[in-house]
């Protein structure tokens, strides 16, 4: 996946770190496993073999089928704005798998001694709990016009994913028009699960306000669009704090 993942674990009184070490080790192993399976950069990875037509999806590892099923869910939820099957280079679940892997890594951190944890996969965040028992995690959303600054601060409901055109250029594929494009400067989606949030954020930055309208009708997900002029548009339930 070519990315950096940061894991923060908040714990109460705990003199023995060893159970935490085991949890962290398990979480990190999950991330590396996902990279082995899903890296489109690695020619020998199962996903690369599927893309070249060398491996049938039905014969692929179960975990790959699970991710592709989630991609189908995301395509449906997004009204087709997220579509890993529409890419000219072959099926590419990259838009979902980073978040999905981070969410799985987070699950490995559930432990009595852990009050809260954050898995931040290059800007896409899965979390449970908070910095203290009575608080939720606060997440800063990068201002796409100036990545040194924040556009706003939100409370994380568990998953926060942001996609944008500002770092990699126009790398986002519009499945409806069949071209690489970005409608807005950045799109953020929050919800209960990071894989779907990641995919929906990709859809949001491609589809802009059309996808914001779709998110408005979904119960579990909320969205934020930052337009190239700096204007912020959100669904009604988006958890902005300041």
């Amino acid at each position, binding site marked *: 996946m070519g990315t950096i993942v940061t894991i923060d674990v908040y714990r109460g009184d705990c003199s023995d770190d060893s159970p935490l070490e085991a949890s962290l080790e398990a979480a*990190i192993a999950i991330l590396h496993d996902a990279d082995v399976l899903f890296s489109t950069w690695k020619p020998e990875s199962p996903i690369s073999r599927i893309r070249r037509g060398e491996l049938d999806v039905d014969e692929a590892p179960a975990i790959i089928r699970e991710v592709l099923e989630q991609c189908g869910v995301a395509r449906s939820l997004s009204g087709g704005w997220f579509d890993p099957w529409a890419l000219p280079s072959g099926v590419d679940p990259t838009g979902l798998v980073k978040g999905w892997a981070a969410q799985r890594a987070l699950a490995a951190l559930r432990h009595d001694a852990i009050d809260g944890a954050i898995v931040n996969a290059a800007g896409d965040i899965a979390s449970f709990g908070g910095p203290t028992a009575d608080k939720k995690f606060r997440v800063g959303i990068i201002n796409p016009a100036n990545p040194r600054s924040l556009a706003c601060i939100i409370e994380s409901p568990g998953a926060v994913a942001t996609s944008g055109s500002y770092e990699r250029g126009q790398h986002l594929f519009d499945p409806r028009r069949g071209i690489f494009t970005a409608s807005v400067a950045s799109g953020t989606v929050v919800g209960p699960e990071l894989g779907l949030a990641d995919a929906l954020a990709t859809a949001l930055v491609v589809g802009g306000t059309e996808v914001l309208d779709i998110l408005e009708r979904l119960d579990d997900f909320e969205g934020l669009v930052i337009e190239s002029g700096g204007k912020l548009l959100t669904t009604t339930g988006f958890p902005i704090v300041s």
Partner: protein
Amino acid sequence: MKRAPLVMMGTVAGLAGVLSFNSTPAKLTLGSLASSSSGTSSAPSTTTTASSSPPPTTATSTVTTPPRTAPTTTTTSAPPVTTTTVSSSVRTAIGPSVDYNFGILSVQVKVTGSKITNVSIASINDGGNYRSVSIDQQAIPLLEQEVMQAQSGNIQSISGASYTSAGFIQSLQSALSKLGL
């Protein structure tokens, strides 16, 4: 304080994982430098986050994919920090020059006590091609900001579309290690 570097068992090319523990409030939580490498590929790296009270335990896993055109090299742990200056309570260190996917860079960090007060690029050579320059102009300020924001205490994490440079983190980590953080 207890630090427990964890080297990932996987021998997949260019993977490294780090974790550390910090049981002292209001101090930086930093990953210790650790790396692994296979015999066939390059660029293991580590990363770090900073935070204030209450102290999280921080673990970082870096998954780097070499560029398609990358030469095949074997890399072990980072080279030593090249310079350190000490003046009153503000201390500065420059990390080693690290090869990242789009060039070579080194990171300078200033700390006051245990608090990072500035993170900047000490040197960079990205070859000047448009794509490298474009990525650097966007990604490096973000990385600098992440380090600064993460210890502010008002927020716990940052969400953004990022192209994160493992090289930046690796050089920063070495600089911080030199300062005993």
